[in-house]
């Protein structure tokens, strides 16, 4: 291992002690390739060139060495990349003079400033506006730091105070030494892995078993990504929602009947969920009233009456309707259906409608969007009803429509209910269509021609633009997201339970 240590030292100095992440990874890949050839040739040498005497085929010995180089070093690299900045941040936060944070600035904002300044200094050194020595000794009295950093593309909101600059310099020093230590450790881990694999390689070593176990572990890890995503969604929603409920009374949110956020409103502004939930439900109901009859009858016709040729033509056409992105439906609602409804129900017609955006506009178009969803799910369920049931009914003299109404549909009912619940969950989660079609103001009204807004549309409007992520009117979006997630999750679980119960019945 002495040789390995010297090699690390040489690699280290070769990269100027400041190896960037991509260079480091390239070096690791090169080491892995080296490991492959060393492992393979040592295995062959131990069997004196006779591959048949080996336990595994030669390339498994190579792959084993390559994996031993990559896995520990990359794992260390990943952990260090995540943990080190957090610990540096905690370190710096401790050394912040008490006066700085009390001026109404939160610690997070201060840390962002510090990091921006540090990053700006790095960029200035790279761009040549500053020598690396000058960056270490820079101070606010002799240099206009803000102008200097502005020159290399880092825009700062306020002037840089001496304390912030001092913290930024500490930050730079700490991250530089941290990245040096990391480079050294990662390379050491890689070399250790290489040496370990090399020493272990001989003709009786079960290389294939080791490699396959590693591959299997990788496969399991990939399957875990689904769990990780769920956990990620859970944390992303829950932390920010809790933060919101620290600023805002949860009762006012859940049971409030007015929605009228304004920036700087603090905890007094009305952020009630009820109007948004009502808009969402109302639009979904109209959408289902359009999609369920049309989709269901289309599915019945396609499954029970249509010849294979008709079915083969109509089904792909309906799928086209399903493949069109929701933003297209949004524009269709805003520019085609809305104005059309306005002509009939607006002030020139019946006088029920004020603008092109309304619950009816969004609901109708969403209904069109859901037709293929309902029809293809119902189609699958109807075709899954055993043919014997139909034959029995037809054999007793029932007409096809009587068979469908009195035998097939009752048998398929649980599945169809499941499909309708899934369609409801789709309708509730739909975003782009309601952003364009439904309106912007939260209202509690029974008139379907009035503009109302939905949970999803408000998530978009509260989180886009210049959002201040500490204000309740922005954080409320996470509470809305949690509400949406919980509601759709419940609907999906119920639908799955119903559908799987139904499948058991006939399989």
């Amino acid at each position, binding site marked *: 291992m002495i040789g390995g240590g010297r090699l690390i030292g040489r690699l280290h100095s070769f990269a100027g002690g400041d190896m960037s992440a991509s260079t480091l990874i390239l070096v690791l890949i090169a080491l892995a390739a080296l490991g492959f050839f060393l492992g393979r040739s040592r295995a062959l040498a131990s069997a004196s060139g006779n591959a048949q005497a080996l336990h595994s085929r030669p390339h498994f010995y190579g792959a084993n060495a390559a994996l031993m180089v990559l896995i520990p070093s990359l794992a260390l690299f990943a952990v260090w990349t995540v943990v080190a900045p957090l610990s540096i941040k905690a370190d710096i936060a401790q050394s912040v003079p008490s006066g700085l944070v009390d001026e109404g600035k939160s610690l997070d904002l201060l840390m962002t400033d510090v990091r921006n300044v540090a990053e700006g200094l790095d960029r200035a050194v790279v761009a040549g506006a500053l020598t690396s020595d000058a960056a270490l000794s820079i101070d606010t009295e002799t240099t206009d730091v803000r102008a200097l950093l502005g020159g290399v593309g880092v825009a700062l909101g306020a002037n840089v105070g001496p304390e912030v600059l001092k913290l930024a310099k500490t930050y730079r020093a700490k991250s530089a030494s941290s990245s040096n230590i990391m480079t050294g450790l990662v390379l050491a881990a890689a070399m250790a892995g290489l040496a370990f694999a090399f020493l272990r390689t001989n003709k009786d070593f079960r290389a294939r078993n080791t490699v396959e176990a590693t591959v299997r572990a990788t496969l399991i890890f990939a399957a875990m990504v689904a769990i990780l995503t769920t956990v990620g969604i859970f944390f992303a929603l829950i932390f920010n929602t809790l933060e919101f409920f620290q600023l805002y009374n949860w009762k006012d949110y859940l049971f409030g009947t007015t929605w009228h956020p304004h920036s700087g409103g603090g905890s007094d502004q009305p952020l009630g969920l009820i109007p948004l939930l009502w808009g969402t439900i109302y639009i979904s109901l109209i959408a289902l009233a359009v999609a369920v009859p049309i989709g269901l009858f289309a599915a019945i016709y396609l499954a029970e009456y249509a010849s294979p040729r008709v079915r083969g033509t109509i089904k792909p056409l309906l799928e086209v309707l399903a493949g069109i992105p929701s*933003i297209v439906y949004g524009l269709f609602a805003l520019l085609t259906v809305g104005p059309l409804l306005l002509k009939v129900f607006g002030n020139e017609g019946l006088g029920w409608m004020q603008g092109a955006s309304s619950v009816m506009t969004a609901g109708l178009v969403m209904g069109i969007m859901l037709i293929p969803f309902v029809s293809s799910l119902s189609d699958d369920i109807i075709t899954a009803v055993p043919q014997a049931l139909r034959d029995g009914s037809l054999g007793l003299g029932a007409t096809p429509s009587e068979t469908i109404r009195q035998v097939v549909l009752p048998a398929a009912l649980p599945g169809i209910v499941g499909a309708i619940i899934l369609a409801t969950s789709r309708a509730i989660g739909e975003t782009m269509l309601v952003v364009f079609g439904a309106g912007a103001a939260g209202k509690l009204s029974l008139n379907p021609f009035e503009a109302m807004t939905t949970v999803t549309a408000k998530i978009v409007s509260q989180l886009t633009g210049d959002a201040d992520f500490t204000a309740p009117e922005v954080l409320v979006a996470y509470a809305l997201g949690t509400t949406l997630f919980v509601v759709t999750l419940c609907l999906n679980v119920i639908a799955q339970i119903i559908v799987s119960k139904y499948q058991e019945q006939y399989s």
Partner: protein
Amino acid sequence: MSLYLESPRTKKRNAAERRFQSYGLAAIAAALFFLVVLLGQIIGNGSGAFIQTRLTVPVTLDAAAIEKAEGSMMKTSGYRKLIVASLSAEMQAKGIEAELDSKAAKALLSSGAPNTLRQHVLANPADIGSTVTLKLAGSSRLDGYMKGRVTRESISDDKAITPAHLDLADELIGVGLLSKGFNWGFVTGNDASDLRPEQSGMGQSVLGSLAMMLVVLAVCLPISVAASIYLEEFAPKNKLTQFIEVNISNLAAVPSIVFGILALAAFIQFGGGTIGIEAFRASAPLVGGLALSLMTLPTIIIATRAALKAVPQSMRDAALGVGASKMQAVFHHVLPLAMPGIMTGTIIGLAAALGETAPLLLIGMVAFVQTDISGATSFFTDPNVGMPAQIYIWATRADGAWYERAWGGIILLLIFLACMNIVAILLRRKFERRW
């Protein structure tokens, strides 16, 4: 009662039968009617974006004037004078009596026309001193007039253009100086500021979407193949496996905007903010691609598992029988046979991701991008837009000319989606095997 006569009850039942069938037909007819109306609206409103009104102007490139224009602060204003002078001369030569004052020139010519001329001069310095005939973009109002969107009535309170200008436009058409042509700029160009819809294009957002699709492909394909192989071929039937499967099927039904919230919190606020990974910043296609990947992953996993399931057990048995390990049987025999199905599922998943807008809005991929992006890294990390996000931006600008662009963008988006789906169908047709 005779068997040959329909009893009233039979008549009633047969009528009910016919009624029931006609409900089904009516439902299908309604669905197809909606499809036709939707496509008709898209093509009818959007095809205009692919056509651009242009003025044919033989510009005399006077060396002194160009030198003066290049020396001044507002370089384009000098070129504007050149164009106006040349156009006036050409109008006189063609026998149009109306005067082309600066207001009329402003009303008819796009504000980007001088820059077109400047770029031509910079690219072809040899042309200085001679006369070149250029096709210069007309203003959005003129463009709307040529396409029927703008009429003399609709501009009654418009400050930018007057009916007299439209009369002049009619005369220009008469002498062949004003014509419409295919608008390549719409396919290749960048977004333009609020007042210049005639200069905007989808090109930048196509690149942004391409970058995101590459990220989605690079993330989703390996992970979904690995996860599916594990779940289909190796996973024991236990609580963990069940939990993973429940997770996948639930994630497939989570609304897309929730993935936007996840990407905002996990990548931008935590990854880019707390940890400080520089590539994870708002508006970067890398982050957009990761958000779309998480959203698409369950769909692709479900398709991949179906493809693996379709490979008959005898293939595995044969491989195991001649001494392959389980891993070798899967990677050497099952996976290659399932590949066409996996590719089809992946392409369809990518198509769904391409049209998705809501997550992009949350991670700020609605940046106004006017500059070209160069370099491999910055292709993924520089602020950009995606195609649906660009359509969203244009639709929110609430103006007839921008709506036309938005519909046009939709046509382009649907062409891409159609191509991806056709490739998927062809793959399925060519490689699908039934055992």
